[in-house]
């Protein structure tokens, strides 16, 4: 391996990358844009259910529930209650009838109206309904016939839920890494299409040095950007070494993917057409972190899962080497496999 040649090739590739206005702008603006997105997202989670209440007669049991994850605000009329729900001040509005106590006493079934906005999730509706039923049991003196024993397995995260912006961190970091995949693929594809690769291969540049230099270019672009992003948004405050190693492995992963896209692409548009579906698949694990429960077991078949999951667990849950080593082993495996496939595909196309 001749390092003078590799340095010259990497310098040339970086120069060409930033001479392509599209990728230069996407790289610089993208980094700034993702950092801005992170900082404008809420940095805390409101864990209380905000409920509006119209109650001509206040139930003692209801007053006791105040503060247990509930923020109950009383309003003067049922119309004000509905307005509050529509405007999004409350997730639910509860209207008690004026004769509710008489109803309990006479063993009738008083009708309690509950108002929800149209976009309230089903589980919130169920929770409010269960709360009202429990309230009614307590009010008529019929306690539930069971005792519920709660035990949190692992660290109790009550009160320390992950803010949306921190949940987004892995997604933003992987987006930065992925965009560089397209840039690298375009660089290689143009090298082949414009036949400049032929000019290189009649100089002392060997095929091995050529691919190695492309790899360094791709890894550098992806790694530096994602590491810079994570440093700015506080993603490497805990276990910086693990985060940096993971991002480096992620950068190698996308470089292999870049090689594969380059072997399929025939110019800029073709690279975009081949690249976008592949990138969307690689984004899926990051969306799974954003919306827990959205992705099931199959997501583990996507190589980027091990990148996202590691960054998420280390940056957001304080995981250490002992917790994520297996992820890194799998990631190294995917790195080697994709790099090998990419190089073989490119060799087949170029030689």
């Amino acid at each position, binding site marked *: 391996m001749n390092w003078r040649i590799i340095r*010259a*090739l990497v310098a040339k590739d970086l120069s060409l990358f930033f001479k392509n206005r599209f990728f230069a702008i996407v790289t610089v603006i993208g980094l700034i844009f993702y950092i801005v997105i992170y900082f404008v997202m809420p940095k805390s989670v409101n864990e209380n259910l905000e409920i509006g209440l119209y109650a001509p007669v206040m139930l003692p049991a209801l007053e006791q529930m105040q503060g247990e994850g509930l923020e109950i605000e009383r309003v003067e009329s049922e119309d004000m209650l509905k307005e509050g729900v529509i405007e999004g001040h409350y997730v639910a509005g509860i209207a008690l009838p004026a004769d509710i106590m008489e109803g309990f006493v006479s063993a009738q079934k008083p009708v309690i109206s509950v108002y929800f906005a149209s976009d309230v999730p089903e589980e919130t509706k169920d929770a409010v309904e269960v709360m009202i039923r429990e309230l009614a049991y307590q009010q008529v003196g019929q306690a539930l016939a069971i005792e519920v024993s709660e035990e949190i397995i692992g660290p109790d995260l009550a009160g320390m839920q992950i803010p949306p912006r921190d949940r987004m961190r892995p997604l933003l970091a992987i987006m930065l890494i992925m965009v560089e995949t397209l840039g690298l693929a375009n660089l290689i594809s143009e090298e082949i299409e*414009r036949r400049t690769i032929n000019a290189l291969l009649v100089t*002392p540049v*060997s095929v091995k040095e050529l691919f190695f230099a492309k790899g360094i270019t791709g890894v550098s672009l992806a790694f530096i950007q994602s590491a810079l992003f994570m440093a700015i948004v506080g993603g490497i405050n805990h276990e910086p070494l693990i985060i940096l190693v993971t991002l480096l492995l992620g950068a190698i992963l996308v470089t292999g993917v870049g090689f594969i896209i380059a072997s399929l692409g025939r110019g800029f548009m073709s690279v975009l057409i081949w690249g976008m579906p592949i990138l969307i698949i690689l984004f899926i694990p990051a969306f799974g972190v954003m919306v827990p429960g959205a992705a099931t077991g199959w997501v583990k078949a996507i190589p980027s899962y091990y990148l996202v999951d590691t960054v998420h667990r280390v940056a957001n849950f304080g995981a250490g080497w002992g917790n994520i080593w297996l992820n890194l082993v799998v990631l190294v495996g995917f790195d080697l496999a994709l790099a090998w496939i990419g190089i073989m595909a490119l060799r087949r196309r170029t030689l």
Partner: protein
Amino acid sequence: MTQGTIVAERLMYSYGNLIAVDGISFNVAEGEILGFLGPNGAGKTTTVKMLTGQLKPKGGKATLLGMDVAKNVDKVQGDIGVCFEVTNLYEQMSAVENLRFFARLFGVHSLDAEALLVRVDLAGRGKDRVATYSKGMKQRLMVARSLVNRPRVIFLDEPTAGLDPTSSESIRNIILEERERGATVFLTTHDMLEADKLSDRVAFMNQGKIVALDTPHNLKQQYGKRALKAKVSTESGKLEDREVILDTPETPEAIHELFAQEKVVTIHSEEATLEDIFISITGRGLQE
């Protein structure tokens, strides 16, 4: 076989069942310009690829500067310059950036890019992006690029194809200058006039084989016919062509008869072209 700067010994290459180069042998001496002529698909490019280390021969051996190309690709490629037929420059970079980048690959630190650009008539345009160049300018830059390492062997593939006469002449002059410097030039071309003008020897390649290899003069002697071409005026005032073949026992009488019996308007001698010779040997033209 005599040792030369370029030596091909029973060189063979096939793409599947198709034999592209069929056991050819030749050598090129130091400081010689060899014109490599042949129609499309004759095996010229494959031969060049084997000589420059881009393809490993499937049979035989290629030796450059005394080194087996297949075993010493890196060393061989450090001493050669290649100019391709199709433009393959980094168009987003300037001419100077292109030349300096390739010089770095060869480990040349003292390249005078401006002087090289002057040689190819690109003085003052060195800092412009190559994308803004005309075809002729790009081709001249390609020639300049092939010279950044002062190569001992230069491979030029159709260096003047599609160029205007000024650009072509400029490139031909550079080829002759490089020969003067002592470089060996392997010139692949369709242009028989160019090959005739520049080459010390020419090789005709057809269907993977070298069918003739000699100096243009000797080939013309061996395969061509010399003739006198005349335009004569008939009684009705029309101009007609007449031809008298030279170098035959009947030639003196035929010339005498021409002047005695016809009203000769113009007369000139004509030699066979390399294309004529190629056709007479292979039965097909170079442009096919």
